[in-house]
Each structure stands twice: as C-alpha cells, then as structure tokens.
C-alpha cells in the first residue's frame, strides 16, 4: 500500500463490513496536515474491541488470525508525525451507534506517501456498495469537492448508482470538481 487512497479504501471497507448504511469520508488538507475521517453508523465496537484495535493479532475476520488495517494506518500516520484517533459506540450501548476513524498525516514529512487516485477510490466504493449512502468531501485552501449518494438517489430514483453510465458520470464530475480546487 504505497498510496494513502488505499488506506482510505481499507478503513472505509471496515465501515461497510460493520453494516453501515451512511458513511462519510472526509479529507482535509491545510498545507501542513492531511486529515482523513471516516464516520459511519455501523454496529460500532465494544470497549474491549476498541482497546485491542491496535494489536494486529486481534481481528474480527474469521478467515485469518491477523488484522493489519488499523496497525498499518497507525504506523504510517505516526511515521509522518501524525496520529490515529478512533471513537466508537457499540449498538448494545445506544441506538446512535457507529465508528469514527480519524487519521492525521504530516504532508511535509519525508515518509509521507502520495494520496493516489481518490476519484477511483470513491467509484470503487460506490460500485461495491451502491445501497450505502456515501458522502465524500475533500477540501483544501481553494475549496471543496463534494458528493452525496443520497442526493443523487433523490434525482435518479430507482436507477442503482453502480450502473456503468452513472459511475462514469460520477468520475467525470469529481474530476471536474478536483480541477476547481487545483488537484488534477
């Protein structure tokens, strides 16, 4: 994983697996830091699960005994002078449950890796889970890129978002917006 977008994809897939119906992926750049936050309304984690999260020998997967998503993210963030902060409310605790994962990376740091192609990442997420209402935001000092699946669904009605024409329109629209904030 030599691009940050792969980490965003990996963390967002945790939200998908947690049964979320609403997932917000937000990237913020201020020149010094790149912060990304993934918030969901999935099943959340218990305090015990949360405490073990940074240990790669803990995983909710049944297929293998090692989970490296969060450990790798934490290692990379800390290598660039940043950090990872995770808060979660388990479904047994409250009806307002879900998880927020925030990761901060130092853009000037020598170990910072390129962001990669976020447009393709967002498309991959929508293609894989068209039923989920993703909100995507990416902001810098020039403005903001914004996409809301719920708003698109309101216009499109019954047409699923993973229809090839829709996905390709989403890609073009995002790239157009990215030009507007100086990222090509």
């Amino acid at each position, binding site marked *: *994983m*030599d691009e940050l977008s792969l980490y965003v994809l990996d963390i967002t897939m945790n939200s998908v697996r947690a049964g979320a119906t609403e997932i917000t992926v937000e990237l913020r750049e201020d020149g010094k830091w790149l912060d990304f936050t993934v918030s969901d309304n999935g099943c959340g984690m218990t305090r015990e699960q949360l405490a073990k999260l940074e*240990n790669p*020998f803990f995983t909710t997967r049944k297929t293998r*005994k*090692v989970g490296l998503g969060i450990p790798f993210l934490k290692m990379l963030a800390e290598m660039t002078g940043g950090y990872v902060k995770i808060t979660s409310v388990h479904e047994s605790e409250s009806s307002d449950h879900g998880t927020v994962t925030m990761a901060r990376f130092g853009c000037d740091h020598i170990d910072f890796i390129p962001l990669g192609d976020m447009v393709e990442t967002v498309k991959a997420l929508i293609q894989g889970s068209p039923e989920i209402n993703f909100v995507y935001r990416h902001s810098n000092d020039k403005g903001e890129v914004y996409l809301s699946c719920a708003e698109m669904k309101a216009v499109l009605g019954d047409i699923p978002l993973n229809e090839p024409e829709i996905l390709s329109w989403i890609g073009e629209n995002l790239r157009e917006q990215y030009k507007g904030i100086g990222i090509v």
Partner: protein
Amino acid sequence: MTVNDICKDIDAEVICGDTSKEFCGVYVGDLLSRAMSHVECGNLWVTIMSNVNVAAVATLTEPAAVILAEDVELQEDAFKGANENGITVLRSPLSAYEICVRLHEAAV
C-alpha cells in the same frame, strides 16, 4: 539448507523460534504492506522493521525466519507475537545488503 546453517555466515543470534526449519529464497524489504504480498512461505525475510506488525506479517506469510538487520531491537510486543505464533527471528549486526552478500556467498 536450514536456518541454523546460515546463522554463523551472517553473524546472527537467535531471538526466538526454531532454527531447524528448511528455507528457500530470500526477500528484503521494510514496507510491510509490500512484504505482506511478496514474502513467500519458506523465505528468509530481511528487514530493519522490528515492531509488532512484523510478527503479524510473518504470521501471514510464513517465512522460515525473519532476519533483523543492523542489530535493531525486536520490540517486546513483537517478540510476544513472534513467540506465540512460532515465528523464527534472528538478529544480525550486518546491513541488509551485507546479509544478502553473505547469503549469496553461502550459496543460497
């Protein structure tokens, strides 16, 4: 060839695990996500990373041994993870490059 056969060649000490394992091939690399997809079962994996994630990647990829170069110290939770999962870990004062040269000379 077994892990034990090359310990002397690379001035390595055994940190944990069984050194009677047969090995085949070598992978060198520190980017763990990449090592995860490139270390092959039975390899010697040479790296300077020494945190718990190394033990986790080794659990997935099953190298015959992890060789820590440049005398890096295996962190405590990494030692625990390696020990509990039967990972063999060696440590050498040599650089990764020098370890590979010596392994080559030993006709690996």
